């Protein structure tokens, strides 16, 4: 176990190994590990963010659904109301129309009655005149008693 020039050989070798390690081994490994660490951290952060966003979106969706439900209900209510109003309106119009038709029919009927009565009056007066004529052919002058006869027929 004597000291000799092996010492220097070992020293040079040590230096070369350290240099090589410093140049080609340490930096890429440490960089890759740091990059991995960073990417993992980023991934975790993104996951957290994603989860938060998801919760937010869910809440939003629930709100949206609720508001939509309300809106739908409102629309249905409005439609119901409108339908009722329309039905009422239609009923009113129908009643009015019916009344109108009824009134019209009644007035026509009245006119018909008046006309019928007048006809009847005329016919009766004619009949009376004929009866009277035939009875009183000789004693009654149609012309002289015409006024009296028409008065009579009018009072019928």
């Amino acid at each position, binding site marked *: *176990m*004597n*000291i*000799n*020039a*092996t*010492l*220097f*050989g*070992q*020293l040079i*070798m*040590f*230096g070369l*190994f*350290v240099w*090589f*390690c*410093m140049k*080609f*081994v*340490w*930096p*890429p*490994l*440490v*960089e*890759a*590990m740091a*990059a*991995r660490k960073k*990417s993992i951290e980023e991934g975790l952060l993104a996951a957290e963010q994603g989860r938060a966003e998801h919760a937010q979106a869910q809440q939003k969706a629930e709100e949206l659904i609720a508001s939509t439900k309300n809106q739908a209900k409102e629309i249905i209510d409005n439609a119901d109301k409108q339908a009722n109003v329309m039905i009422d309106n239609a009923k009113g119009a129908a009643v009015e129309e019916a009344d109108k038709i009824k009134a019209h029919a009644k007035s026509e009927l009245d006119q018909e009655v008046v006309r019928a009565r007048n006809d009847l009056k005329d016919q009766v007066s004619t009949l009376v005149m004929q009866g009277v004529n035939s009875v009183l052919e000789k004693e009654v002058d149609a012309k002289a008693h015409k006024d009296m006869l028409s008065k009579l027929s009018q009072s019928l």
Partner: protein
Amino acid sequence: MAQGELTASAYIKHHLQNLTFGQHPDGTWGIAHGAEQAKEMGFWAFHVDTLGFSFVLGALFLFIFAKAAKRATVDAPSGLQNFIESVIDFIDDNVRGSFKGKNPMVAPLALTTFIWIVLMNTMDLVPVDWLPYAAQLMGIEYLKVVPTTDPNATFGMALGIFLLILFFSIKEKGLGGFVGELTLHPFGKWMLPFNLFLEGVNLLAKPVSLALRLFGNMYAGEMIFILIALLPWYAQWALSLPWAIFHILIVLLQAFIFMTLVIVYMDMAHQKEH
């Protein structure tokens, strides 16, 4: 045992001898045959086994980690990738915990020291005779498979750390600041020589303690494996298994201590206030 006629002490000596390449006294270069020849080669000799194993292990570490670095993506990692990234995380935590300055070199330095030392220490868990015996069959006389049981390896690394301490101390505090730190503490300028002595010892103790702690622990562990290997073959498992399991702890612990101290020393080199 490698050879039947070997005595116990020869066996141990054989196991503690590095494969040395250097200049023989007669001027030729070659492999030393035996401890005597290795000693004669003096300082300018190389432990081929230490350098070879540490290079292969370091290259293995860098190969696997560089592959993982190339494949690293933002997607979820799997298998080996996952393991490597958890190691990176572990080192990063330690550096963040102990190192307050800003220096892109410290974390890769810690990673390299930790993994490299773990791998070198782990060679201790390979049964002591396997690789040397296989080498012997291939005609290689000596083979010490655990680089960290060679003080050259640990002192080489510690020397590197020491140079980095000096470099970053001067870079961060300026030459004046660093010299001031060495001379004006802890007793003020009138006690300058004493301060210099104290701080100098303090400074030098850092690499020496780093190197010796690692070497001592691993050397002792290896020694015990060698001693266990001297027992009859049917009794070895009873001791080598518990020791190997315990040694896994030492393997990791020593690498961890070395790395932590490197981080702490780097931090001290970067701190402006004493």
